[in-house]
C-alpha cells in the first residue's frame, strides 16, 4: 500500500500527480537538498545526532545540518519544549526563510510526551509553530527520523511552483491546526 493510498485512507491531502516538468525539476532539486536547523533540546537530540551520523545517514539525502536558521530549509525540533524555550523557538522559526517546514521529533515535541503534566512544559511544538511531519517515538530511532525526512521530501515533491504561497497556516492559538 503506497503512501498516497495510506494518506487518502485517513483523510489526508489527495493531490493529483499531474505536475509538469518544471515543477518536477524544481522540486527534485529542493527535496534533495533540504538543510535542517539543529534544534536538539533533550534526549531526542542524541538520536538526531545519530540521524546525521554514519549509519542512518542524513547526508545521503542531501540533508545537512545548519546551525543558523538563515540557511535552513526546515527545522527538526527534537526534545522537550518548555515555555521558556518556546519564545526562542518562535524567534528562530521566524528567522527562517520561506519555504520552511518543521519536523516534530519525539513524543515530547509532538504533545508534551512524558512530561505532559509538568507545569513548565509546552504541550507540543505545534502550539508555537506549524508542524508538517510528526515523528513518534521516545526517542524515535534514527531510521524513524529518516522516514520522517522521506515523508517531508514527498511533501516537497508534491508542491507546485505556481502555488508559491502555501496554503494558510494555522495560528498557534487554534492548537496548531487549521
Amino acid at each position, binding site marked *: 500500500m503506497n503512501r498516497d493510498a495510506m494518506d487518502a485512507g*485517513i*483523510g*489526508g*491531502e*489527495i493531490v493529483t500527480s499531474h505536475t509538469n516538468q518544471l515543477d518536477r525539476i524544481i522540486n527534485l532539486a529542493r527535496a534533495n537538498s533540504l538543510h535542517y536547523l539543529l534544534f536538539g533540546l533533550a534526549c531526542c537530540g542524541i538520536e538526531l545526532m545519530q540521524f546525521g551520523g554514519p549509519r542512518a545517514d542524513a547526508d545521503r539525502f542531501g540533508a545537512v545540518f545548519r546551525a543558523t536558521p538563515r540557511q535552513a530549509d526546515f527545522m527538526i525540533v527534537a526534545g522537550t519544549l518548555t*515555555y*521558556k524555550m*518556546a*519564545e526562542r523557538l518562535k524567534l528562530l522559526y521566524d528567522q527562517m526563510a520561506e519555504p520552511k517546514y518543521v519536523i516534530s521529533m519525539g513524543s515530547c515535541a509532538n*504533545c*508534551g510526551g512524558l512530561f*505532559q503534566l509538568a*507545569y*513548565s512544559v*509546552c*504541550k*507540543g511544538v505545534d*502550539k*508555537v509553530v506549524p508542524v508538517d511531519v510528526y515523528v513518534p517515538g521516545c526517542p524515535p530511532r534514527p531510521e524513524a527520523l529518516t522516514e520522517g525526512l522521506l515523508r517531508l521530501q514527498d511533501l516537497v515533491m508534491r508542491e507546485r511552483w505556481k502555488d508559491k504561497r502555501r496554503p494558510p497556516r494555522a495560528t*498557534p*492559538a487554534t*492548537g496548531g*491546526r487549521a
Partner: protein
Amino acid sequence: MTTSEIHQRLQAQFGEAVGPLSEPKVDPFAFVKPDRLVEVCRFLKDTPGLEIDFCEDLTAVDWPKRDAIEVVYHLYSYKYRHGIVLKVEASRAAPTVPSVEGVWKAANWMEREVYDLFGVTFSGHPDLRRVMLPDDWVGHPLRKDYQEAGGFHGIPNLRENPLVELRRLDEVRMAEHAKANPPPPPPAAPAPSAAGAPPSPAAPPAAPKA
C-alpha cells in the same frame, strides 16, 4: 567523626539553638534556629576538627499541615569525610531564612532555586532572583497549593485528546474533499430484466469458479 559527634560539638557550642539529632534512618538531621544559622555554618566550616567545606545540597520541603517550609542543608567535609544534615523551619506565610552564601559559595544558586520553586526569601543573598523559570513567571511551583495559570505568554497548557482531535480533523478534511469533488449522480433505475433475474442462473457460473 560520626554525625552524632559533630552534633555533640554543635550542642556544646550553641546549646539550645541546635535541636536534637533525629533517628539515624538515612541521614540524621538536626533543626537549627534560623537566627543562629549563619554562626552555626561558619563554626562548622572553620573549626579545625570539623572543616565542613562542602554544601552538597540546599533544598526545601513544603509542609502545609505544619504550616512550615523546611530548608534542608546537606553538608559534607572532603577532608574528614564526614557530614551532617541541618534543617531550618520557616513559616509558610512569609518564609525568610538567613543566607549561607557567605559561608559556601555553592549555596548561591541553590538558594536561588529554593526561592524560585518555594518562594523562600534568603536575607543577605546578593542576587536573589529566579534561576530556572522565566523571570516573569507567577507563582512558586513546588508549593503544595500551586495552581497552574493556564498557560504562559499566550501558549495554552491544555491539549485535546488525540483520539478525539484526529478524528475531528479527519472528518473536516473528508468533508472538504467531498465538497471539492462532488460524487457523481447515482445511475438511472436498473433495467427490469436485471432486477427480475432469478438467482439460479447466477449460481452455476459461480460454482466452477469456486
